[in-house]
């Protein structure tokens, strides 16, 4: 399909404007939203992921592709919602209380978005109360916490405890990450997963969802 290839390329090249335009044209000539997603957009993002793994793409290419994907999705999302299709898996993400490092967290967020998840980014220095509130109000499937300081790592545990106290711990899967975090620590504090880097984080989320 010609159109599909154009959208595919626009995303691969991180061209948001083009992606938007191509999608608009495709919809006008009657393409189905789900087809565009599954035949052009998802394969494009898969290829982006592959190129990144192969060290052919760096983060900038990745983020630009994600941005292009997003601009196409802006057109598709209302149509999908209207047609009642359950689409999006929601992820709440933030850097824990006391910690202002956000680069790693941002990359994880962007890659999750790039993979089609709905990401709610709470920013940095996020208190346990703020995480709890976000879970209660936004009903995400996944909560991601990032910490780069050894002295803020304990806030991950505090946050999990707060989710328990609020009675919402079982409603979400909790993932943690950041340089000082280890798998063992994740086990210790009762998180559902940990990964060393952003691409593994995407895999982790996908795996967890098959279990949700």
């Amino acid at each position, binding site marked *: 399909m010609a159109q599909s290839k154009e959208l595919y390329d626009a995303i691969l090249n991180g061209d948001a404007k083009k992606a938007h335009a191509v999608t608009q044209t495709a919809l006008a000539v009657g393409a189905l939203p789900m087809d565009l997603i599954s035949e052009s957009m998802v394969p494009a993002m898969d290829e982006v992921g592959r190129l990144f793994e192969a060290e052919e793409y760096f983060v900038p290419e990745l983020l630009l592709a994600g941005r292009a994907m997003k601009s196409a999705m802006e057109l598709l999302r209302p149509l999908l919602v209207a047609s009642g299709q359950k689409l999006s898996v929601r992820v709440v993400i933030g850097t824990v209380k006391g910690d202002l490092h956000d680069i790693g967290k941002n990359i994880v967020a962007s890659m999750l978005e790039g993979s089609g998840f709905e990401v709610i980014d709470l920013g940095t220095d996020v208190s346990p109360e703020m995480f709890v509130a976000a879970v209660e109000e936004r009903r995400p499937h996944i909560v991601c916490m990032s910490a780069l300081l050894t002295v803020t790592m*304990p806030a991950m545990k505090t946050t999990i405890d707060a989710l328990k106290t609020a009675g919402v711990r079982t409603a979400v899967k909790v993932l943690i990450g950041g340089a000082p975090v280890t798998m063992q620590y994740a086990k210790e504090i009762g998180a559902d997963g940990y990964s060393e880097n952003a691409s593994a984080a995407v895999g982790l989320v996908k795996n967890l969802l098959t279990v949700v």
Partner: protein
Amino acid sequence: MNERTIREYSTLAIPSQDQLLYGVSPHPLTCGLGLTIGAGQVFPEINFTLPAMNIEPETWPDVVAHYDEMAAQILRRAVSLSVPGILLEFELLPPMTECPEWGAEITTVLKRHLIACHEKHHLPCALRVTPTDIRDQQKPPLMRTGEPWQRLKRSLELCAAAGADILSIESIGGKEVNDQALMYGDFQGIVFALGVLAPRDVSWLWTEIRDICAEHPGVVPGGDSACGFANTAMQLAHQKMLPEVLAAVVRAMSAVRSLAAFEQGAIGPSKDCAYEGPVIKAITGYPISMEGKSASCAHFSPLGNIAAAMCDLWSNESVQNVRLLSGNAPEAYTELLAYDCRLMNTAAANQGGALQMRNWMTESDEWLSPQAAVLSPDATIRIAAAIVAADTPYHRVIAAGNAAVRVLKDGIERQKLHITRKEHQWLTRIDDALRAFPADEGALLLELESQYGSLYDKASYGL
């Protein structure tokens, strides 16, 4: 909007790379308890931090006990290995800056250890204290006003009063723009952050720090670090998230903002994690601290040996107080630093030895990574010369970037440096971008307004 005119440093304090050696700098610095830095010997600078734990009133006694233990063990090792001198760095953790009394208390504890050790063993030593730059707590961050700045200022004051011999900081002005620009590989944004915003903040902040030091006789304004800019890029390149050539060029450009601290009165030693140190040393002649393989406890790097080539202090960046088989990690890294310094000093004690050793350290890493290539004595002089030849920070950043690109391209041409096709594309892209900048920083500011304008507070930069 005025471009600020730079008065100082239109020439190099060390004009030739043959004089750019480790252990010696034109303006040696005597500080603390009889420690003279840059007068012939390299000394260990040891930096240490807490293991994973909470900092709160209930755990505070444990926190103090950790620092107490670390200082005792570090100094025990230093004495046992007969080091000729040592610098301790205390990098405050955020809660210790939030609550300035806490940072001051640890400062007191550490200084007490140094004094006792100096009295008993006559060990020349000093204490560097580095409060956390906590000004980025709101978006956009306020740099010159507001609660965080007030606390940071008080932290600097209380630490100075509590016994700091050197004050340093890793300031973050401009980072709010740089972070995003870096991640999107947007070279314009990076130049704006490093050439317009950051130097303005550094200049302002260091007049404050200089004044605080002036009020506390004996306390030295040390230096700043482009850590949040260039080391972030290095970490990202290390994780294959950014091209190495981009990280290398960012490193060179970051020297301009750190130089601004010296223009306002900093006299060294610059911060260990400031790999822009050699450029600073070539320009200002003040001693610098560096870290490389010795900092493998804190981060990996492609700069293990070359980083030592021109240092006056040799550091481990940071290590947690965890137990290894030998003892605690801070003591273990003290041993490492002590021997590395001893080897450098032994070579330097021989005619021509420092130059020989420096060249080997350089040769060891120079062409294995673009990030190492821009750290060689040759590259240092080229970048430093380009900086002093330009007139404003904005122009200096572009000049430094250009010099770094030349260093890399020359290396490639001479078939010394080998990079991937992908890295090549990026290098060309950076080269092109550098040619396309407007002559006037005001024009750039306007151009980037829609993209970055909401990220930073103009008043915080006198804009």
